[in-house]
C-alpha cells in the first residue's frame, strides 16, 4: 500500500448526497478478476453518454480533473454494496482522498485498506468547500495526515478525525494483513478454547 502523508491538489466537487457504490462503479464492470484499469469505469453511467462519449459537463470530465487527487462529495458517500472495486476505481483514476460529512461503513473500511483517505468535515466546512470549488474550480487544498488537518486556500485549518491504528497504517503504508498474521499464536490459543462452531466438511451430493 502506498503511504499517505501530505497532498496538495485541486479538488473535483460532486455535490450529491448518498452516492452509492453502484454509481461509483456499476455492477457490469465487476466481472473482472483483477484490480487493474477500473478508473476508466469510474462513475461510468454519469460520465459517459450511452454511445460511450464523455459528457463534457460531468465534473471528472472537466479540464484539470485528471490531475485532481481530492474528491469532494455529499453526505453518506459510498453507501450500498461492499464492492472494493469502488475504492480501486477511485484510486486508479487518481484520487487519494475523499471529503464528505460522512461515509458508509464498508466503503470507509475498504478505502482505508487501499490508502484512500476518507476525510470527515463538519457541515459548515463542507458547505464552504463546495462554495469555494464552485467559485473557482482550480481551488487547491492541502491534506496533512500527520497533523490530521485540511488547509483551505484562505489559510484556514480544519482538523479531521482518524483512529490511531488506521493513521499509522496509512502514514507508513502498512498492510493490515501483516498485523493479523502476527497474531497467529493468539488465534491458535483462541481456537484451542473454542472448537469450531460449524464445519462445512460434511457435504452431501
Amino acid at each position, binding site marked *: 500500500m502506498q503511504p499517505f502523508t501530505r497532498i496538495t491538489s485541486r479538488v473535483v466537487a460532486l455535490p450529491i448526497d448518498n452516492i452509492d457504490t*453502484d454509481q461509483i462503479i456499476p455492477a457490469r464492470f465487476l*466481472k473482472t478478476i483483477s484490480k487493474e484499469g477500473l478508473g476508466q469505469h469510474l462513475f461510468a453511467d454519469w460520465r459517459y453518454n450511452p454511445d460511450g462519449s464523455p459528457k463534457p459537463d460531468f465534473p471528472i470530465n472537466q479540464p484539470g480533473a485528471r490531475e485532481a487527487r481530492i474528491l469532494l462529495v455529499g453526505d453518506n458517500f459510498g*453507501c450500498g454494496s461492499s464492492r472494493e472495486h469502488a475504492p480501486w476505481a477511485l484510486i486508479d483514476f487518481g484520487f487519494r482522498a475523499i471529503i464528505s460529512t460522512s461515509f458508509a461503513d464498508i466503503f470507509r473500511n475498504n478505502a482505508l485498506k487501499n490508502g484512500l483517505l476518507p476525510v470527515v468535515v463538519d457541515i459548515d466546512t463542507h458547505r464552504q468547500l463546495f462554495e469555494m470549488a464552485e467559485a473557482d474550480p482550480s481551488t487547491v487544498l492541502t491534506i496533512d495526515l500527520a497533523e490530521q488537518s485540511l488547509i483551505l486556500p484562505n489559510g484556514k485549518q480544519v482538523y479531521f478525525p482518524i483512529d490511531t491504528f488506521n493513521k499509522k497504517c496509512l502514514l507508513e503504508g502498512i498492510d493490515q494483513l501483516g498485523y493479523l498474521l502476527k497474531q497467529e499464536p493468539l488465534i491458535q490459543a483462541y481456537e484451542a478454547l473454542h472448537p469450531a462452531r460449524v464445519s462445512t466438511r460434511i457435504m452431501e451430493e
Partner: protein
Amino acid sequence: MTSTPCTLFDKIWDDHVVVEEPDSPAVLYIDLHLIHEVTSPQAFDGLRRRGLRVRRPHQTVATIDHSIPTTPPEVPIADPQAARQIQQIVENCREFGIPLYGVGSPTRGIVHVIGPELGLTQPGMTIVCGDSHTSTHGAFGALAFGIGTSEVEHVLATQCLLQRKPRTCQVYVDGYLNKGVTAKDLILGLIAQIGSGGGTGYVFEYAGPAIRALSMEERMTVCNMSIEAGARAGMIAPDDTTFEYLAGRLYAPKGEAWDAALKRWRALPSDPDARFDHTITLDARRLEPMITYGTNPAMAIPVTGVVPDPAGVSDLGERQAMEKALRYMGLRPGQRLLGHPIDVVFIGSCTNGRLSDLRQAASVLKGRRVKEGVRVLVVPGSQSVKRAAEAEGLHRIFLEAGAEWRESGCSMCIAMNGDQLQPGQYAVSTSNRNFEGRQGPGGRTLLASPLTAAAAAITGVVTDPRTLLE
C-alpha cells in the same frame, strides 16, 4: 454474582474477541466465511502472491450466484467474462480446498439464501461475506456483516478480522402488521423513516411483538435490508421460531450437540436491562404496503401516497439528490404512483426470493393473467427453493399466468447475468436496491413486496395489493 446486563450483540462480540491491543481495533474471530465469484478472485490472488494458505477451509463455503445465468443449466454461459469469473472460483476452491456449491449443485443458490437453508447460519456465530447483504444472517441471532475484498483475504488467511466495536441500536416494532402489509413493507417503512445513512455505525437489534410474530423467512427479509439504512448489521434474538427452523438442517448440530447448542442459544437474547446506545420505535399497525419512488431505498412511500416535493427539503445535498432522483425516475412531485404503468416485474433476490415470498406472489397470480406487454420474471433464491416451489405447483401458477420461471441466482437484482431492464423501463422489483442503473443502465426500479409486485403484474400499473386479496 451480578454482571452488567448485556445485549445480544455484546454477548457475541465478547465471545469472539481474540485480542484487543491498545490503540488498535479488536481482532475478531470469524466462525463462518461465505464467498462468491464476484468479490473473491482478487483475495485469492493476494494469498498466492504472499504464499499463504486458507487457514480454515472448512469454516468457509463458496457458491456462484451473481453472474450466473438463470436460463436452463444446459444453455452455455454466453458472456465470456462471466464464464471466466465462474471458472476462477471453481479453480480457487479446488486449489485451496474450499467446499463449493457450484453450477451443477442441486443446492446452489444466492449466498444469503443457502447459508440459512443448509443450516450453516446459526445463533451466536460471527459470519462474514464479501457482500453487504450478509446482514440477512442476523435473523438467527448471529453477528453477520459484509466486508470488502481485502477483508475477504484477511479472513481466508487468518479466520479473523480487524474490527472496531460498533454501537448498538434497538429497533422496537410495536403492534402487529395488518393484512397485505409484509416484512418488506416493515423494513422499507423503517428506512424511509431514518434515511439511507440513518444506521451508519450501528448494529440494529430488532425487537417487539411485530418482530417476534415474523417467520424466519420474514425475519431474514428485515435483517437483509438493514444495510440499506447504513447499519453494520441487523440482528434478531433467537427463539423457538429460530430453533424450529434450524432443527434437522444439513449442517445444524444433531443429537447431544443439538441439546448443548440449544442451551447456549437460549442464553443469547439481550438481558432485560441491557442498554443500547440508541433506540428507534416503529408502530407496525400504522404501516401500509410501501413502494419506492426514487433512487435509494429510503425514498419510499405508502403505495397509496404521493411523490414528495424536493422543494420542501432544506438540506442542499439531500434536495439535489432528490431532484436528480425524480429526473432519473421520470416522476413529478405530488404525483400518485397508483396507476403508473410498468414494464417489468421481478420477483426474487436474497430479500424476497424464498419459498414464502413465492407463495405470496402466487396467491395473487393464481387464476389470473399477467397484463399484456408486461414481462414477469420469477427467480427462486436457490435451487432448493425452486424444487420446493415446484413440489407445491407454484411454478405452474406462474407459468399459467404468463410469467417466466427461472433457475436460481441474483439475476435482475444486480443485472450482471444478462437479466436486465432496457433504458427507461419501469420495474416493480422485490429486490433491495433501486440505485440508478442497478437493474440495467437507464432502468427505473420501484422496490416493493412480493404481493405488490404480483399485483402490478396483473394490472400493468402500480397497484395496492390489498385490492386484489380476498
